[in-house]
């Protein structure tokens, strides 16, 4: 049994071992000084052992050949995945969004309104494509999102929702469907856990994971990720080529 285990683990050695054993038995049978009855028996034994060794070798080679297809870690991984009972929870935006109308209440807090509050009694103007085309409201918006116009995403039939390129209504909470129309590669990465960041568990059999949606990190009107200022820096001069100048007190220390 131990021999088989060794052979399975290293197919190259198996051939060497088998060859050595068969050489041994051949030498044994040929070096027998009495070629009579005993010789025949020994030869028979040698043949039998050769047959057994060949069988062992074939079995072990078959095992060795199949080994790459039965990785020992695979069953564990699939088992854990089957147990996966926690979900990836994707944060959803508020719906419908509230817009500041530019006025404050008596406490000084900005007054907000839903889109439909104003747009319910305003006719949509399809000629408006950019902020410059607007005569009032929303003129402070910074738009930097390709060549999209307002009605590429906003639903003129119902301002409390968005619309896909084919006109299908989509809720603000399902904004990722809208983004994914153009940003397929990012969506594919996102679905595979490689875009968007996450917190919680990597192992869903042990706990849930929370993820952002598109507009948590990217402003829909100007989606490029913002520039940042680093706030934390280890006191670590390694690899730093810009050696700080020697402080003025240093020469005094040398003199002392």
């Amino acid at each position, binding site marked *: 049994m131990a021999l088989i285990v060794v052979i399975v683990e290293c197919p190259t050695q198996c051939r060497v071992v088998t060859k050595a054993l068969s050489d041994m038995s051949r030498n044994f049978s040929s070096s027998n000084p009495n070629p009579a009855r005993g010789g025949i028996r020994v030869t028979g034994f040698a043949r039998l052992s050769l047959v057994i060794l060949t069988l062992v070798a074939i079995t072990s080679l078959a095992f060795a050949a199949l080994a790459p297809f039965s990785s020992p*870690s*695979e*069953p*564990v*991984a699939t088992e*854990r*995945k089957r147990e996966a009972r926690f979900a990836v929870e994707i944060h959803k935006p508020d719906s419908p969004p509230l817009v500041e109308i530019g006025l404050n209440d008596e406490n000084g807090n900005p007054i907000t309104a839903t889109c439909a509050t104003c747009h319910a009694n305003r006719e949509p103007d399809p000629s408006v494509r950019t902020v410059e085309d607007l005569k009032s409201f929303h003129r402070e918006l910074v738009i930097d999102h390709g060549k999209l116009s307002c009605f590429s995403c906003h639903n003129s039939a119902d301002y409390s929702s968005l619309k896909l390129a084919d006109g299908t209504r989509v809720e603000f909470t399902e904004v990722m469907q809208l983004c994914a129309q153009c940003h397929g*590669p990012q969506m594919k*990465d996102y679905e*595979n*856990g*490689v*875009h*968007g*960041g*996450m*917190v*919680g*568990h*990597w*192992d869903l*059999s*042990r*706990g849930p*994971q929370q993820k*952002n949606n598109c507009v948590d*990190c990217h402003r829909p009107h100007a989606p490029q*990720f913002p*520039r*940042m*200022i*680093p*706030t*934390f*820096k*280890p*006191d*670590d*001069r*390694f*690899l*730093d*080529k*810009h050696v700080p100048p020697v402080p003025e007190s240093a020469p005094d220390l040398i003199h002392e």
Partner: protein
Amino acid sequence: MFPPYLRAHRTSFMNNHAENPDGPTPSSGNDQDLLPILNQPTTRRTALKAVGAALGLAAFGKAISPLASIPENVSVDEFLQQHYKELSDDDKERIFARLEQETKESYGADVTISDHRPIPGVRFAYAINLSKCNGNGKCMEACHLENNHHRGVDQSYIRVLELPKGTLDMEEGNTTFDHTVPQEDKFYMPVQCQQCDNPPCVTVCPVEATWKEDDGIVVVDYNWCIGCRYCEAACPYHARRFNWEQPEIPAEEVNPDQGYLSNRVRPQGTMEKCHFCLHRTREGRLPACLEACPTGARVFGDLNDPDSPINYVLQNKRVFVLKEELGTRPSFFYFFD
């Protein structure tokens, strides 16, 4: 029966007893009984014997001298503690209780030190999307807070390098940039322990205080480390850190969720390194640096799970490893997309 030199010795010893049947006299008998060599005439042989005895005593004293000079901040229990791999469950329970007690005394914080073992069948790997990383350094800060680093030097296991576009040589990097990121002509590469499959730091350790575990994480037994810093010199990624000082951490900032091989407060004079937050990841949670990353550049997962994010990266992105030519075989990958 006895060789001549012993016979003489034996005779004088017996004679002394015969002269003092009631016991040795306090004045001279003690010396004669305990060290009969003193009662012999001064010959070259006795002189050499005395010198030999003195040298033997001195050597013995020197050999046991470390016992007499245990540093003040090391308790006897700690001094006599065995290597982590040789500890029984009872030993661990006792040692963890002692360490928790010491943390309470030194830092005033109630902490729990646990023994996190690898999850069977799991093999961890990490990847960073350098197209997304913008060098903001939130990962360094998260590591600093999570892993109970020394506040005095803002220690962290991660270094974010700012590199000029056009090179992948990490030695060209700069760590002390403090301007708005990202700069147009730069890219940013966080470097931490690469959890090599062929780790030079483990090979050079003279006391086997660092080793690679089954899930791929290279760990350090901080109580076994002698602080020789060979591993720091051997690591081509400059990923190991040395505790020059006893870490200072305000009580309210000590992370109480601690692991013996990971983020417990390290003693002064020992080496430490990134351990993929094993006190979190071996419980199925994500590493602290990944959770903190605002750009979503970091990917972590199980290499043995074919559907894990890390395998998606390896199969769909053009990944590279740092200093591949050294043959360290990192479990840490970088990619642009």
